[in-house]
C-alpha cells in the first residue's frame, strides 16, 4: 500500500511510521504545519507546532529512509480548530480541539489530499485499532493497552474514513515499549517528552490564552434560584465543576461548597450550586456520527458505555436516537459535564459513534419520587423512565 505517515515529531508517530515501513508499505512522511507563527524551539514538555518538532520528524524520516514533506494546514487549522475552540468557549461550551483536529484536519483535509495524491492510507501514532467486524465492515476498537488508548479522540472517524486509517501502535502494551522500540531503532525522539494538552497553547494556560482573545465582560455569579451571590470578570474563565476561584463573599446557607453548574455567556452569568447538581442523568446532542456501521435500529434503546473525556472512565448506559437527537442515559450519574464536550459511545471495545453534548439533564433532587431516585452509590434506579423525572439544567 502507499501510505502517508503523519509525523508530528513525537515518538509515537515516528514508531508508527517505522512499523508501516517494516510492514512493507511504500511510506511517505508528512509533517503538518499547523501554526501560522511557529515557535522555533520546544518549550517544556509541550510541542507539536515548532520548527524543532518538524526537524525531529524529518530526522526520523531520514533514519527510516522515507521521503519527507511539510504540508501547510495552518489556515484550515486556524479556521476549523483554533477559531472553533474560541467560538465554543465564547458560547459557554467546552470543546475538545484534538477531536476537532482529527475530524477536520488529519482524517479529513489530510486524508482527502492523500487519497487525491494516490495514497491508500494515512498512518498516525494513535493508540487504537481498526478491525474487521462480524458483518465484514471495519470497526474502530480500543487499543490493547487501555491505559494508552486514544480511541476516544478518533470517535469522529466515519465508515468512509476507517478503510484509509492505519494505526500501527494498536497492539503496543505500553508507551515504554514504544520508547524502547524507538531507542532500538536509533530514533532520536525516543526520549522526547510527551506532548499533551492543547498544542496551540504552548504554556498550557488555557484561561490566559482565552482571555487575550475573548473580551472580558464582568458579570454576575448566581445560584440556582437566580439570586446574585457574586461577580466574575468574564464567563470564559469558568468550567463546569469548577470549585476554586469563585471568590464568593456570601457563604451558602447550608455552608456546603459550591461548584460551577452552568456558564451562560448570552446572559453573562455563571450559575453555581451544590455538588449534587453536577450529577448528570442524561446527555444528548444533535451533532453525531457513527464510527463504521450504525446499529440496525438506532431508535430502539441499546446498552452501551459512554465516555465524555479522553481520560474518563466509560460508564454503562443506554442510548437511542430520538427525533434526530442522540440521547444517552448513564447508569451512574456523570459528573461535571459541560456542553461542547464529546460523548463517545462504545459497545465493548468498539467505538460505535460520537456526538457533541448540547443538552444535559441533572439528576439532583429532581428525580420523580415515584419512578426513580439516586441510591447512595449514585446509581439511578430506573433508567427507562427518567425523562419525565429530570429537569433540564443547561440549554
Amino acid at each position, binding site marked *: 500500500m502507499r501510505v502517508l505517515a503523519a509525523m508530528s515529531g513525537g515518538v509515537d508517530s515516528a514508531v508508527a511510521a517505522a512499523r508501516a515501513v517494516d510492514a512493507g508499505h511504500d511510506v511517505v512522511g508528512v*509533517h503538518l*504545519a499547523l501554526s501560522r507563527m*511557529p515557535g*522555533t524551539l520546544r518549550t517544556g514538555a509541550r510541542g507539536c507546532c515548532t*520548527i524543532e518538532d*518538524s526537524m525531529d520528524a*524529518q530526522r526520523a524520516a531520514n533514519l527510516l529512509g522515507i*521521503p519527507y*514533506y*511539510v*504540508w*501547510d494546514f*495552518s489556515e484550515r487549522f486556524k479556521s476549523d480548530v483554533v477559531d472553533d475552540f474560541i467560538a465554543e468557549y465564547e458560547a459557554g461550551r467546552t470543546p475538545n480541539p484534538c477531536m476537532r483536529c482529527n475530524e477536520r484536519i488529519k482524517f479529513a*483535509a489530510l486524508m*482527502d*489530499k492523500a487519497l*487525491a*495524491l*494516490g495514497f491508500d492510507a494515512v498512518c498516525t501514532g494513535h493508540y487504537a485499532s481498526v478491525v474487521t467486524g462480524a458483518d465484514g465492515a471495519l470497526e474502530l476498537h480500543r487499543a490493547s493497552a487501555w491505559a494508552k488508548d486514544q480511541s476516544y479522540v478518533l470517535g469522529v472517524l466515519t465508515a468512509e474514513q476507517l478503510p484509509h486509517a492505519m494505526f500501527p501502535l494498536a497492539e503496543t502494551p505500553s508507551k515504554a515499549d514504544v520508547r524502547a522500540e524507538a531507542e532500538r531503532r536509533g530514533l532520536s525522539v525516543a526520549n522526547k517528552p510527551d506532548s499533551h494538552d492543547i498544542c496551540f497553547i504552548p504554556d498550557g494556560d488555557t484561561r490566559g490564552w482565552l482571555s487575550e482573545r475573548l473580551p472580558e465582560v464582568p458579570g454576575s455569579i448566581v445560584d440556582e434560584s437566580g439570586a446574585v451571590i457574586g461577580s466574575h470578570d468574564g464567563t470564559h474563565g469558568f468550567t463546569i465543576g469548577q470549585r476554586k476561584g469563585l471568590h464568593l463573599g456570601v457563604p451558602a446557607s447550608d455552608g456546603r461548597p459550591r461548584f460551577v453548574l452552568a456558564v451562560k455567556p448570552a446572559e453573562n452569568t455563571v450559575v453555581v450550586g451544590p455538588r449534587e447538581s453536577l450529577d448528570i442523568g442524561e446527555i444528548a446532542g444533535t451533532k453525531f456520527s457513527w464510527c463504521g456501521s450504525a446499529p440496525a435500529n438506532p431508535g430502539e434503546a441499546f446498552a452501551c458505555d459512554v465516555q465524555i473525556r479522553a481520560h474518563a472512565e466509560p460508564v454503562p448506559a443506554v442510548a437511542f436516537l430520538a427525533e434526530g437527537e442522540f440521547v444517552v442515559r448513564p447508569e451512574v450519574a456523570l459528573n461535571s459535564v459541560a456542553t461542547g464536550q464529546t460523548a463517545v459511545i462504545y459497545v465493548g471495545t468498539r467505538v460505535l459513534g460520537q456526538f457533541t453534548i448540547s443538552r444535559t439533564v441533572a439528576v439532583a433532587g429532581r428525580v420523580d419520587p415515584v419512578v426513580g431516585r439516586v441510591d447512595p452509590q449514585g446509581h439511578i434506579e430506573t433508567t427507562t423512565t427518567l425523562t419525565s423525572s429530570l429537569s433540564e439544567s443547561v440549554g
Partner: protein
Amino acid sequence: MTVYLDHAASTPVRAVARQAYLAALEVSGNPSSIHRDGQRARAILEDAREIVSSTLNCDPIEVIFTSGGTESVNLGIIGLYRARRSVDPRRTRIIVPEGEHHATLDALEWLEAHESAVIDWVLLDTLGRIDLTAWRDALTREPETIAVATSLWANNEVGTIHDVDALAAACAAAEVPFHVDAIAAWGHIPVGLSPGISALSVAGHKVGSVPGVGVLVVPRSVTIDAVLHGGGQQRGIRSGTQNPAVAASLAAAIGEAHPQQDGESERLAGLRDDAQRRILASTDGVRVSGDLDNRLPHNLHLHIEDASSADLLYLLDEAGISVSAGSACQAGVARASHVLLAMGRSPEQASSALRISLGHTTTQADIDELVRVFPEVVSRARTVSSRA
C-alpha cells in the same frame, strides 16, 4: 536518478571544484601564518582571489571572501549603512526595489527595527522590472537622508534581469553607495564591478563550487563597516581565519564557468525555451512569469492555474524531478512567493508557481522527461486543489 532542475537553489559541484577543494585540504597552514606552510595556504587563497576577481571586473584586493551569499548581502548592506550613518546621522533611508531576496529583506527589516532605518520601496511592474523613474525619483528626493541603495542584479525567482547600469548611474549621480546582489546572475550573464557599484555579492554554490563560500566585492574607494570583528583579515572588512579550500573550489568553479558563459547560456536558453514551448503546448492554464525579453537564460518560472506549489513540488518529486517554488519557511512549507506578490499577483496566484532552473549538468533528456510527466502532474495537482 532524479532529473535535477533546481540549479538556482544549488548547482551540482563541478569536478574541477571538487578536485581543487580536495587538493587544498592537503595543505596544512593558516594563510595568515608567517611560516612556509602558512605561505603555501596563502598562495592557494590568493590564486583563488585572482581568478575570482578576473570574472568580476575588479582587482584581487577588492574580493572579500565570506561564508556565502547571505553573509555577503548582510555585510554589504549593513556595512554600508553603518558607515554612511556614522558620517552623517541623517542618513537613514535605504532605497530598495520590492521582490528582493530574503537576505536583503530581512537585513533591512532588522535595520529598520534596531538602527532607525527607513525603507524606501521602489515598485516592480508585472514583469518584475524595477520602475526606473521611481528609482531615480527616490534617489533625488532629499539625498542628504539616504544611506544606501541596494538591488538584485537579476531576480532569483522569476529571472528578470535589471538594468544595473541605469540603477548604478542614478546612484552615482546622487552620490549614494549602491550594493548589488548578483548571486542569481553570476556565471550566467556578464556581471562585475562598474562605476556606481559600491559592493557586489556573489555566492559559490550557484556556480558549482562547494557551498559555504561567497564573495563581497568592495572597491578600494568604498568605506564600509565590518560586521564581524577579530583578526583584521581581508582589509579588516571581514575578520576570521580564511579558508583556502572553499576559496579554491569557488575559483575553480567560476574559472571553468566564466570562459564558457556565452555558449553555455545559449545552450541553456535553448533547452529552457524548448521546455517552455512544449509545456505551454501540452498543458492549459500555464503561463510564464518574468520579463521574457530579458531574463536569466537558465530560468523558467511558471504560473499554473488551479494548482498549489506544494502539491506540484510533491508530485514532481514523486516523479523524480527536483524543482522549486518561491521560498519555503523555516519549517519547510512552500509559501506564497513574495516576488509574485510584488509583481501584482494575488496570494492564490503567488502560491501556484514553479521555478524550473537549468545548469551545467542539464541535458535534453532532462527536459524531455520534465515535459513528459508535466501534464499528468498538473492534472493531478488540480484534482487535489479542487477537493480542498
